[in-house]
């Protein structure tokens, strides 16, 4: 399902401009939404999930306008949503909880429901814990219940908000691999502040900062942002003053820095191969000069 966002603005009651004239087109497939904390990712996703009304602007998902009652309903029928802080009823078992949500999503046939829940428990590797109460589940397990819940009605649009925060490295990798596999002909919109999650799963992405779009395009294009801007510097003295340090490794008596900088940060600096993270940092670096703080 294609998502077309135009001139989307959300101002919270306190006067916070969480989204500020956002224009964005999201195609089918896996799509990353990258931004630091407070960038407006959750706000955007809550608007798309019909939980929040935009202050102005329009969002069309699969041709449906989400601000109309009918449009919203049509979108919700095709939507799977994993909220940032997914909540469950602690007194239900995983299977029971999924059964309840499946009913709310209109899976009325008991046998179809049972089959679908069985499949999904298998997908998220919770079959063995399925009949335990959710109050005993770890954060990672709850996240998996959350994704199973989102997939119940076989959604054409899957929105996942920071799904890997708080997971241990193995779980994180498993989880994002699962998301990529789910993409196929679906639209999967993944929000995160972890660059690596996007690097490992998405071909295209958008970068959000302070409610505005800083970048949209392919992963390669964002990496290219850091072309000729990534350097390694070995020094025994103080760190170079200009540019942004990405990594610091002790080396002999001194340090070896990896840096993003528009100009050569030190005389002995060597150019280095950029990564997506470098591209993101370079983007942030150059944006700071152009995006005024509200």
């Amino acid at each position, binding site marked *: 399902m294609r998502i077309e966002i135009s001139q989307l603005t959300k101002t919270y009651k306190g006067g916070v401009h969480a989204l500020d004239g956002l224009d964005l087109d999201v195609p089918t497939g896996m799509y990353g939404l990258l931004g630091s904390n407070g960038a407006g990712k959750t706000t955007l996703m*809550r608007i798309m*999930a*019909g*939980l*929040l*009304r935009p202050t102005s602007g329009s969002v069309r998902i699969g041709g449906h306008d989400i601000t109309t009652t009918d449009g919203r*309903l049509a979108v*919700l*029928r095709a*939507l799977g*949503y994993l*909220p940032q*802080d*997914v*909540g*469950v*009823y*602690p*007194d*239900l078992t995983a299977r*029971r909880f999924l059964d*309840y*949500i499946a*009913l*709310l*999503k*209109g899976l009325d046939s008991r046998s179809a429901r049972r089959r679908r829940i069985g499949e999904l428990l298998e997908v998220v590797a919770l079959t063995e814990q399925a009949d335990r109460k959710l109050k005993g589940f770890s954060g990672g397990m709850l996240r998996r219940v*959350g994704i199973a*819940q989102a997939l119940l009605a076989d959604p054409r649009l899957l929105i996942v908000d920071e799904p890997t925060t708080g997971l241990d490295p193995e779980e994180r990798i498993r989880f994002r691999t699962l998301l990529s596999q789910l993409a196929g002909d679906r639209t999967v919109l993944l929000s995160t502040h972890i660059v690596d999650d996007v690097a490992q799963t998405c071909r295209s992405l958008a970068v959000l900062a302070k409610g505005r779009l800083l970048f949209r395009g392919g992963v390669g294009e964002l990496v290219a942002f850091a072309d000729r801007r990534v350097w390694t510097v070995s020094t025994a003295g103080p760190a170079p003053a200009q540019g942004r340090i990405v990594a610091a490794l002790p080396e002999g008596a001194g340090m070896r820095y990896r840096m993003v900088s528009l100009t050569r940060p030190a005389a002995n600096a060597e150019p280095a191969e950029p990564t997506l993270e470098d591209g993101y940092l370079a983007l942030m670096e150059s944006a700071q000069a152009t995006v005024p703080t509200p």
Partner: protein
Amino acid sequence: MTATLRYEFLMQIRRPSLWIVYGLVFAVLVATLPYLTLDLGFRDADLVKAAMTTAAKLIMTLLPIVYGCMVADRLVRDRRLGVDAVLDSTPAGRTGRLIGKYVGVCAATAVPLALVYFGRAVVYTVTEGKPAALGWSAVVFLTSMLPGLIYLGALALIGPLLVPPMLFRVLFVIYWFWGNLIPATMMPTLSRTIFSATGDYASYGFFLQERLALYEGEPEAALDFLRPAFSPAVAWLWMGVMVALAVALLSAARLHAIRSES
């Protein structure tokens, strides 16, 4: 709506604290009120009817406190737990879900109370050998008890949207004694008015008409204009008032939700 009704019912009825708190208050009820003898001094010709009405009156003194307190956290806990985002992003209608929650939660929370009532009716039937008690208990439950529970359930579900559930429970207990139990002459109160939830208007209006003398000759109290004389017509009016209050409270909750969506 039916899915929410079913699951809210299940979650509430399996809640251990529901049974424990009801158990404790029931023990207080048995210890302090004539639940075992059902003797409030009524000498009605129809003793069975009077006994079943008495049982209802006794139960509607203390157990609604438990009922209200146990309903109180059910609506707001969706937000506290963070399930609301999951529920709200399903295509299920929110009004239907609110009604399902209301009916499911209130029905489950009323189960122990109903058991205490109908249990007494069964015991009465067996010990007195009067099967009519079963029929009367059903009628009395529907007319004297259920309308009050319908209103109180809505109040307790919605109230915590405005104040935290723990504070609401304290206020609810105060409200219960002030607005339903204390004598009307003590201070301006909703006690014994058409807005009181204890069910006296139905009990006296329908079943204990010979006992109207009990309330006669009382000194005047504030808000007496809200205390029409008992009669079947006023009993029906009271039932209507209870249901109307519930509908008003639930509608207010929907409006509140729509407003806070933005």
